[in-house]
């Protein structure tokens, strides 16, 4: 596996992966989540599992079964964990617990380390006959301000695991178990991030009528108020007083987000028919188009006011683009302010930084190069793989509670 990434990922990470895996050969790892297809977790596991296998670590990926009621409940839980004010009553809990009780009868947890992903299967810890110290709960959502009732319920299960994993420190919670950080990552070989020929990029921009001869500012994100698309338009209008440039707002609406269609309508209204503002509502599988649009950008924006991790920032930096990002959620963990881009707190701040980058193309290019290197060192899937190997070592040594580094 590491050979596929040789020349792309840092040699040091690849050698660490090999060395860590050598000590785990013959051990077994098991992942459990709620879906085989769709969503970031499934996408990540589809890529990671073969990598573990190729390193000699027997790896199984199990998916729990659930009916419509179960998924309605877990969807509510998912939103509540990210701060939504939802009702979570006794009946919801029973639906949730009963489904996991049934799953536990079919599911065989027999690996050396078991990683349970997110809230949907979290209570398996209560129903499976397995050494809990070797069970790891991996949280993929923004837990910075969880709904107290839902987190109160879920945390009782999470507290029984041997270890919990979060994206950034702000998502960690008061828990009686060790908590470690594993930031998300991108796969540089995926359709969304692989290298493209110039003709491929131009084919996409021409398809949407974007003029590559003029600067292009791109924000890729769902049409969601927290991504502040109207703030982006306001910043763009301020910039346009000085620069002849274009704005691309590319994203999609989500079936499970009833607000997104409304936000999209507001964005259209905000753009007011401006021919230099391109509002692209793309299907979920438009990875190639997203890749091309990010590569066509002069500057990429992610002006979120609230954000989980915001991997579009990493995607853009990987493509050598300077990024202007809102100082929210995981964005400050990705952008090194004034080195790989700028962190901003307002539309005016975003406009000021955009004007700077558009008038200093050489500096913008240098920032982009630094951003790519920053991603190469910190946010590629190979680093993610290494982190999981470290988790395995830590759990198998039975010492996740104490640093084994130099103590």
């Amino acid at each position, binding site marked *: 596996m590491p050979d596929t990434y040789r020349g792309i990922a*840092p*040699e*040091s990470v690849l*050698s*660490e992966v*090999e*060395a*860590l895996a*050598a*000590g785990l050969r013959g051990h077994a790892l098991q992942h459990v989540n709620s879906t085989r297809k769709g969503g970031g977790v499934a996408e990540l596991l589809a890529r990671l599992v073969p990598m573990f296998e190729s390193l000699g670590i027997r790896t199984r990926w199990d998916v729990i079964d659930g009916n419509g009621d179960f998924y309605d409940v877990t969807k509510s839980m998912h939103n509540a964990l990210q701060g939504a004010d939802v009702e979570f009553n006794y009946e919801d809990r029973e639906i949730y617990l009963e489904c996991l009780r049934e799953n536990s009868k079919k599911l065989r947890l027999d690996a050396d380390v078991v990683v349970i992903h997110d809230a949907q299967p979290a209570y398996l810890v209560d129903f499976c006959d397995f050494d809990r110290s070797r069970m790891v709960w991996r949280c993929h959502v923004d837990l*910075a*301000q969880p709904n107290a009732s839902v987190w109160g319920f879920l945390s009782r299960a999470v507290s029984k695991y041997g270890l919990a994993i*979060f994206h950034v*420190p*702000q998502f*960690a919670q*008061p828990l009686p178990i*060790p*908590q*470690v*950080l*594993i930031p998300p990552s991108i796969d540089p070989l995926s359709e969304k991030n692989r290298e493209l020929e110039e003709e491929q990029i131009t084919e996409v921009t021409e398809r949407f009528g974007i003029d590559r001869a003029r600067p292009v500012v791109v924000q890729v994100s769902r049409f969601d108020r927290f991504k502040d698309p109207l703030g982006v338009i306001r910043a763009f209008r301020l910039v346009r007083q000085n620069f002849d440039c274009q704005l691309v707002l590319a994203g999609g609406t989500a079936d499970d987000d009833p607000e997104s269609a409304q936000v999209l309508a507001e964005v259209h209204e905000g753009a007011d028919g401006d021919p230099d503002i391109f509002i692209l509502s793309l299907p979920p599988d438009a990875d190639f188009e997203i890749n091309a649009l990010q590569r066509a950008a002069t500057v990429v924006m992610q002006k979120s006011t609230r954000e989980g991790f915001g991997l579009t920032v990493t995607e853009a930096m990987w493509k050598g683009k300077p990024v202007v990002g809102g100082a*929210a959620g995981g964005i400050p963990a990705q952008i*090194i302010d004034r*080195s790989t881009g700028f962190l901003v707190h307002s539309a005016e701040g975003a406009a000021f930084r955009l004007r700077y980058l558009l008038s200093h193309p050489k500096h913008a290019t240098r920032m982009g190069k*630094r951003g790519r*290197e*920053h991603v190469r060192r910190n946010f590629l899937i190979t680093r993610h793989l*290494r*982190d999981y190997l*470290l*988790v395995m*070592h*830590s759990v198998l*040594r039975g010492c*996740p509670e*104490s*640093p*084994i*580094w*130099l*103590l």
Partner: protein
Amino acid sequence: MATEKPEAASMKQGPGIDSNEAFEFLRASYLVQVLPFRARSLGQLLTAATLAPETSLFYHLHHAFFRSPERLPEYPNDFASWAHTSLGDAVVAERLANLNLTRTASLSGIRREISVILAEHLQDSGDGRHVGKENEFIFCRPCGLVFSTGKRAQTPGEFLEVLQKVEIDSIFYHLFTPRLLRGASRNDFSTWFERRGFGSLSQRLAEFDPYLNSLEDNRRYLMELVSAELKSRKEVRDA
């Protein structure tokens, strides 16, 4: 220079000098563990910095070097950076930035220095500034394993050759961890050259302040020091 396949060497804590007196370049691979110590004001930072494990202080005093090895950040440690960026208190940020880590022999000494800076500032200026939950200081610490990079140097010439190419994390490991985490009196490079009879070079390596440079600048400076010494010795021999 001998090169071999890297091998996980858990709990390996030596100075990177093997039984043949070769310098073995090591590096650490670690996860970041979140600790239950948080601060939203200077007063809370003082309490947490007093209670947090020393490895956590080490992490926050050196985190910036990992984040951007090519660049010296505006503030060299997380405490100063947080005081400036989140609390907006430039004075205490500058005082925390000026912690003299090369002159202080241990993390317990550094903890005392941090406490004094914070306590004095609190006495002068009070604890009026508080940040929201989203900007709180969260204490973390590294936990992981130490590895051999597979690179060794038998001679100063080989050392120079490896130093140029070795992973930057290895330079971090040998420069910053010996004194503060392993109780050594000087960094590993200085120790090795001293054992090889390079007294003055060893002294210079021990005395220079790596906290004033980015990691990559430290690499360049180390190379300059070693190559100047080798050149001068050659000139003496040739004369």
